């Protein structure tokens, strides 16, 4: 067990180094001259040369790579060519809004997905089961950016229920002090008991959040269903039933508990896809998160920012996979 965890962590580190190598190669292969971009269009050749020395672009490639990795271990991702700020500072500003969306979307996925999975397991091969299967395949097939537009059309244009985009109304930002603790508005306003801001933030977050949640809802429902169906055939359930326990008690108290592990794992693994969906949804709802940051960076060819977001996302992804693997390894039913 301990040996497995150590091996798994080492393997994770190797993969991480590989990810860094790939981003380094991509960044060095960019056709446009970063130095020329850095000094602007009206720079003289000598200024470009000066910038090259400053940015370390004249060093031999292996030296550049070692510098790159050393900088990374010290949390330095380079400077954005667009905002001219350290990429790390940019990330610090843009991560909380994205995190807020992802966390809430996963919460919705758990609240809706698990009951949906339970009922489709109970109604196996009946209408509800088919509908939930169609829903979960449908959720993977939907272009998220289009769903976002569709929701705007229905809930903003037709029904006028929700705002078109943004995180908070301009009036609220003028009239009230915005609490800043974690940078996640919903959380901060909740903790400080600032209900006006909380209500306003909630009103803004619902549409993007539901759009992002569609995919994990389907996934959680399918996972809960198949895990539950498997578990309901186990001896201990038969034993519980033969004691004459109520079916609802058997289901909620005894069976469901053992499906939660696989649901947690499937949620972790879906993070990569959900994150990318979040990026696309953010550009539609003008949500000031990582997705908007990447989209603008892509248009302006600001490659340090693109690589920064890529490294950040890949690291999170590797870390969560590592945690998922360790959770699986901790299950006493599995011998490694």
């Amino acid at each position, binding site marked *: 067990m301990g040996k497995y965890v150590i091996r798994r962590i080492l*393997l994770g580190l*190797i*993969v*991480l180094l*590989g*990810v860094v*190598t*790939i*981003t380094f190669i*991509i960044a060095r*292969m*960019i*056709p446009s001259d970063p130095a020329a971009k850095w000094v602007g269009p009206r720079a003289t050749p000598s200024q470009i040369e000066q910038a090259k020395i400053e940015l370390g672009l004249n060093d031999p490639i292996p030296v550049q790579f070692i510098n790159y990795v050393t900088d990374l271990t010290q949390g330095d991702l380079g400077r954005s060519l667009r905002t001219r700020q350290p990429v790390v500072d940019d990330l610090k500003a843009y991560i909380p809004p994205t995190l807020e969306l992802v966390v809430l979307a996963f919460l919705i996925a758990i609240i809706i997905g698990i009951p949906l999975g339970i009922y489709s397991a109970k109604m196996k091969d009946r209408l509800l089961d088919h509908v939930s299967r*169609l829903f979960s*395949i*449908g959720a*993977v*097939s*939907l*272009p998220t*950016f*289009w769903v976002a*537009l*569709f929701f*705007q*059309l229905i809930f*903003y*244009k037709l029904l006028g229920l929700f705002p078109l985009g943004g995180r908070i109304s301009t009036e609220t930002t003028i009239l009230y002090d915005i609490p800043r603790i974690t940078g996640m508005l919903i959380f901060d306003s909740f903790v400080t008991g600032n209900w006006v801001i909380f209500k306003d933030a909630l009103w803004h977050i619902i549409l993007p959040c539901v759009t992002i949640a569609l995919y994990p809802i389907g996934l959680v429902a399918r996972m809960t269903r198949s895990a539950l169906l498997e578990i309901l055939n186990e001896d201990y359930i038969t034993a519980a039933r033969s004691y004459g326990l109520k079916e609802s008690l058997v289901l909620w108290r005894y069976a469901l508990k053992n499906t939660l592990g696989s649901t947690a794992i499937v949620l972790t693994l879906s*993070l*990569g*896809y959900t*994150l*990318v969906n979040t*990026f*696309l949804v953010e*550009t*539609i709802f003008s949500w000031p998160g990582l997705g908007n940051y*990447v*989209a603008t960076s*892509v*248009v302006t*060819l600001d*490659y340090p920012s*693109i*690589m920064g*977001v*890529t490294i950040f*996302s*890949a690291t999170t*992804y*590797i870390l969560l*996979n590592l945690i998922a693997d360790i959770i699986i390894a901790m299950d006493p039913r599995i011998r490694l």
Partner: protein
Amino acid sequence: MEKNKFIETLKPRIKELKFSLYLLNRNWLTKVSFYIAILLFLLAIFSQVISPFPGHIMDEANVSQKLLPPTSVNFYGTDELGRDIFSRVLYGTRVSLTTAILSVGLALLIGVPLGAIAGTLGGWIDEVIMRITDIFLSFPPLLLAIALVSILGPGLENAMIAIALSWWPWYTRLVRGQAISMKERKFVQAAEAIGTPTWKIIFKHIVPNTISPVIVQASMDMGGVILTVASLSFLGLGAQPPIPEWGLMISTSRNYFPDAWWYSIFPGLAIFITVLVFNLLGDGLREILDPKTRKN
């Protein structure tokens, strides 16, 4: 005599195929998606012939007719240059399907040989190849493609290359597993015994025998790849105007949203239906070909 023997060897395969078709027939959702997929291919091939305004597919402008809502003439309305959106969405089927097939094909070209080599040779070569796939798979999907297109420059061809470069590890993993089990088979060992060179064993004996699960997997991936192409184009990294690509159309339509709602809604609906059909088909195929569910 030779010919008869050949037919004899084919018989069990034909029987299996018939059984697969029987299973396909039994699952109505898979059956319907199978027919719709065929219809989509036909639409893609004949899109230019069927479209009511073939000139509008690229950049023939008709500005006096711009941004008209859907009518009996323009089923899906018109865009900012007065082009018929229906004709463009129809032709978009061809763009999406070709792009998806080429991307998957390119990914296969990289992934299959690597997987066969890793599985057959084993040892440190296997270890190195598999660690490389681990690295590629630890990037969230699409993000690696975005990073790659940013060096290659935007465009449909580059988007295809980027997708292939982020997709191949899946095929490497699949083929590697197949190759490992194939290595133990008598015919491979016989070939080894008579001194057949290793490269010939890999490409003549192992690769052809791993190809059918790979084809199935590739057809299941079509939906995901179409969605990725659309997402890249939506971000401005894939198809460039005037190519009638669905994601690009939605991206442009945002300038006229929500007033010209039809401009965004119909291309998106096309993406959704196409991807859904391929995903349903893939899901059904998996059930049909999975030995566990196949028996009952």
